[in-house]
């Protein structure tokens, strides 16, 4: 199966530093960055990032991908796509952020705890075929060892409960067995 997916694959020394870790189409595109900073100026969360989007591209082009992965930047992307639609060089920066998150998980290099919610999400979807919000939150706060987070959420949770808006039981799709088969098939073939 063609497995040339973003962020996948072993390090190939014959390639440039960026191409070693990122999908070639993204690596090609970021070469076209003119460092204008429109992405950083458009980003609603850039102020909280270790490195702004413009900086991230500069760092990747300099081969400093480990430094990039150690930063909080990918985990502060809310996926609003302003950077993507405004980039004069056509760089799909939001998709680059997704690719960096996947790469970070694959290599195990990220600020502590960053992917927990995302991973808890995929495991609930794998189990039911749909999102299971309560289980997701329970897993999240359990894994981040953050009972305070749960307590903080309690007043809101109670309100939601009283309005009949708390999804107490997950919904499992009928095709769950097929879904499991597909996941297994991908796992066997190294799909991520």
């Amino acid at each position, binding site marked *: *199966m*063609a*497995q040339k*997916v*973003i*962020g*996948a694959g072993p390090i190939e020394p014959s390639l440039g530093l960026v191409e070693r870790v990122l999908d070639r189409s993204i690596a090609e595109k970021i070469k076209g960055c003119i460092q204008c900073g429109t992405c950083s100026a458009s980003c*609603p*969360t850039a102020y*909280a990032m270790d490195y702004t989007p413009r900086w991230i591209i500069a760092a990747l082009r300099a081969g400093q991908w480990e430094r990039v992965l150690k930063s909080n930047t990918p985990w*502060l992307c*809310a*996926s*609003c*796509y*302003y950077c*993507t*639609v405004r980039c004069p060089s056509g760089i*799909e920066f*939001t998709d680059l952020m*997704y690719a960096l*998150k*996947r790469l970070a*998980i694959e290599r195990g290099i990220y600020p502590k705890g*960053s*992917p927990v*919610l*995302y*991973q808890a*999400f*995929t495991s609930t*979807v794998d189990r039911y*075929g*749909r*999102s299971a*919000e309560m289980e997701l*939150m329970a897993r*999240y706060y359990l894994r981040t060892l953050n009972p305070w987070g749960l307590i903080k959420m309690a007043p*809101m949770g109670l*309100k*939601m409960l009283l*309005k*009949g*808006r*708390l*999804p*107490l039981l997950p*919904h499992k*799709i*009928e*095709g769950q067995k*097929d*879904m499991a*088969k*597909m*996941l297994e*098939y*991908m796992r066997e073939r190294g*799909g*991520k």
Partner: protein
Amino acid sequence: MAYTYYPGCSQEVSNRAYNLSTRAVAKALDMELVELNDWNCCGTSPSYSVRELPTFVLGARNLALAERQAGASDLVTICNGCFAMLEKTNLRLKESDLSRSVGEVLGVAGLEYKGSVRVRHFLEVLVNDVGEGLIRERASLPLEGLKVAPYYGCQFSRPEGRYDDLEFPTALDRLLSWIGAEVVDYPLKAQCCGGLLMTTKEEVALKLVRDLLALAQKRGARCIATICPLCQLNLEAYQERVKARFGADFSIPILYFTQLLGLSLGLERKALGLGTELVSATGILAPYLSVASREV
């Protein structure tokens, strides 16, 4: 007009009022929404952050089921996240490598996707397909004098911009004006609510929500109309935490646009899921309830 309907996970319980009001509005406008049988998670942003191929397989299963159920057809979503991810999947599946990989995996479940489904958002379906004429005609109880901030969030017009302007969408402004509401100028209308960051980086998301609420209040809006369940939840459920963090006291009802449309169509409040909001809209909506609703 028949459409395949994809409610999305959060519409089952936590945002069920969105699902209810969508179905009620569609019926009142003679649209046929047929729910996609056994739909699954759209693939969604957190999944895409963890793994690529399985994310597209999730999306593709929905597209394949829709094709099997209704042939070349429109798959209508009401969640911006579902809309953007299903559309991304649909576009990416035009790439031969990915399409081959996904097709091979779908085959394991006896499914196939030929690529004939169109992904739509209910807002633009109303504006583009149902249209101004019929909506004005059916809006027998116009929301005259109700000041509404139209809020689109991110993933309706971005990244593709297929149905509206990338940065200054207008579909919701137009729809609200057709039903008599007073649409306030709301320049942050396509800015971000923080999305999932509300759980992982609360400080950052609260600031975004604070800015959105503050501008709506400043512009005199009595409520904010949303087109996305996550935007709705972030803007509504976190008003108290915004207060705790910034000392800014807001009490702004955050309604699904379908609820406002439904009221103007004369539908009863229960049928629109009104009353399930955390910031009560009873006061601001009292003048617009149908006679039947008032008696309930």
